[in-house]
């Protein structure tokens, strides 16, 4: 069972992730965005959204560090395992807390913030909130209960190795079956988030408008190109149903 989960699930998730994105981008450009609800509620969003997003960005950076950088490299850089552990745990705890607070505000806002928000909340939003909250709670449990107050767990020898194996197509499920339950749960939930990603508003992550920094202020478009593009777009629109 565990073998099945930890060898098959990541690939199913990744396949859904890739195919889902391509399909969504080709067929539902109109739905590709942040699906902003600021016009309905702003006071809580002003707090919740920046806290969640900035927290999440740091959390993701932390994960990249923990999962991709092998212990050998940090040791070679002169960072002792103990020091690394301290930095990772405390920085992770702070970023995680910021993200948690933001997520809690956003959750309360969306589901207890009045009727207006409810009508723009889709079933996929509910799925996404459930997964994100579960994943965050499990993640904070690892950091706080196991690594701060508990005996600690050196995931860099197991989970991180498994993570890198996923990309070399040589996963060894035994690395995870030995890990504490919360770590396995964290991995499974992560796979689920990856799998639903293209079908939720998370797609806006790929639309971070960095190009804005370098372009001229006023954008002009010529009609001929548009006519051709719009023509094919119309033809496609007729098929795809919106």
């Amino acid at each position: 069972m565990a073998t099945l989960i930890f060898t098959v699930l990541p690939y199913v998730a990744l396949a859904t992730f890739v195919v889902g994105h391509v399909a969504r981008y080709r067929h539902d450009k109109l739905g590709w965005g942040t699906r902003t609800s600021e016009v309905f509620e702003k006071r809580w969003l002003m707090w919740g959204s920046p806290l969640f997003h900035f927290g999440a960005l740091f959390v993701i950076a932390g994960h990249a560090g923990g999962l991709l950088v092998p212990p050998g490299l940090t040791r070679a850089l002169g960072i002792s395992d103990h020091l690394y552990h301290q930095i990772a745990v405390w920085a992770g705890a702070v970023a995680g807390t910021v993200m948690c607070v933001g997520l809690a505000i956003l959750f309360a806002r969306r589901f207890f913030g009045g009727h207006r928000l409810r009508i723009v909340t889709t079933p996929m939003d509910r799925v996404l909130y459930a997964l994100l909250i579960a994943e965050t709670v499990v993640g904070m449990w690892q950091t706080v209960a196991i690594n701060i107050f508990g005996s600690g767990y050196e995931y860099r020898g197991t989970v991180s190795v498994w993570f890198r194996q996923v990309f070399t197509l040589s996963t060894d499920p035994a690395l995870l079956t030995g890990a504490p339950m919360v770590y396995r749960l964290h991995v499974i939930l992560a796979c689920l988030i990856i799998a639903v990603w293209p079908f939720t508003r998370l797609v806006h992550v790929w639309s971070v408008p960095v190009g804005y920094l370098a372009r001229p202020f006023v954008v002009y478009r010529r009609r001929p190109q548009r006519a051709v593009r719009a023509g094919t777009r119309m033809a496609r629109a007729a098929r795809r149903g919106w």
Partner: protein
Amino acid sequence: MRVMAQVAMVMNLDKCIGCHTCSVTCKQTWTNRDGVEYVWFNNVETKPGIGYPRGYEDQERWKGGWELDRKGRLRLRSGGRLKRLAQLFANPDQPVLDDYYEPVTYDYDRLHSAPAGQKAVPVARPKSAITGKDVKVEWGPNWDDDLGGGPDLVPQDPNVRAMVAADPAAADKVKASFEQTFMFHLPRICEHCLNPACVSACPSSAMYKREDDGIVLVDQDKCRGWRMCVSACPYKKVYINHVSGKAEKCTFCFPRIEAGLPTVCAETCVGRLRYIGLVLYDADKVAAAASVPDTADLLEAQRDVFCDPHDPEVIAAARQAGIAEDWIDAAQRSPIWKLISEFKVALPLHPEYRTLPMVWYVPPLSPVLDATSAGGGDDASADDVFHAITSLRIPMEYLAQVFTAGDVDAVAGSLLRLAAVRTHMRRRSLDGGQDDALLERVGLTAEQVEELYRLLAIAKMKDRYVIPPAHKERAAELSSWASGCSLDSPGGPGMGGAPTAPGGGPVPVTIGKRRLR
């Protein structure tokens, strides 16, 4: 010189009766859908009044449009590019639904479904058109129509506040003057600016200005819902569709313009006060005109961006820029060019926002005329009207806040020319003579005054709307994607037989109105 063409509009405010036909026909055409219930691409507000959304002209609060930084360089009032990206997660300047209003419908079904013999008369309660829940109707898109709520709301008008700030002594006169009900209607659409703040603020480059005719549009496929355009537009003419989470705005009815037809608001305007035509402008002058340091020079600088379509040099440059002959010809016959540059009677709305708006207004003379006769003068005598115009400080200063960034002389000049038209035509019909001193004073010839009279008073549709259709050689192609239905193209599923919706089945007659919950 880099000549470009722009479709522009002028509205003659003296003739607006505030009937809202334009708003209603526009809404039926463009925003009669879920997600944009609260959106009016065209709205008509009463001035003085706080407008829609509430107090949108207060840029201290909303941070719309452009400003000059300390070095005199143009920058968006809401901040630079990095700041904007940092605010993607929550835009502090975005208006919320209550700044517009909560759209309302009534539970009419109750009137039918109430059981027979019920003692109490059934009541159709107001329900939110967005949530379907009971609402108290406390505000609307046009709550202060015809000075409704005057004593409370008029002092909140940002233009009144700016006027009082400029001259504290005006405060008392505001009151006295408003008790004599000075007001006019201001129909507003997107200005399709030459220096659009919305386009400049869009991080995804989804908003663009069409090179051919200058119409500003949102690419729905590229919009990601960062909503920076909503707050950056000082006229608040970009809106969020709350269902799709994307921005939508006035399209200047581009499918109609391409076919040579006027916009829906113009075509249905009861007062026949709208003019549509081309202007040629020098794209190289736009940035300089937008960054003129002294606001008093803005109007002249913005007028100066337009090119004289009769100037051979301009014509040559236009040809070189690929502007077709029929477009150059249309630009020469354009009522817009005449009203703005030749007769200098039209003024821009809030030039101080520095977006170079392309919908201009002939300021209303009627409040002045009312005041003239109220003061015992003859409203057809140029001297009495001139006297009234210059002594009537309040409406003039108010109009100056709205149309000329506070420059009272510019408003007076425009009003004087309008008054001169009345006096001249009166003289014409009484004894056939003319007052040369008067004509000299306003700097127009008798022929010009008469042409202006015809344009303002009796122009037919073909003179009010000089719109060259998009290129004929591409008409078939255009009609297949813009103004027609792609299903009707040869061999398409719409050729003969009943129309079918994209997923099969009959085409719905109304577009998905959500049922009350």
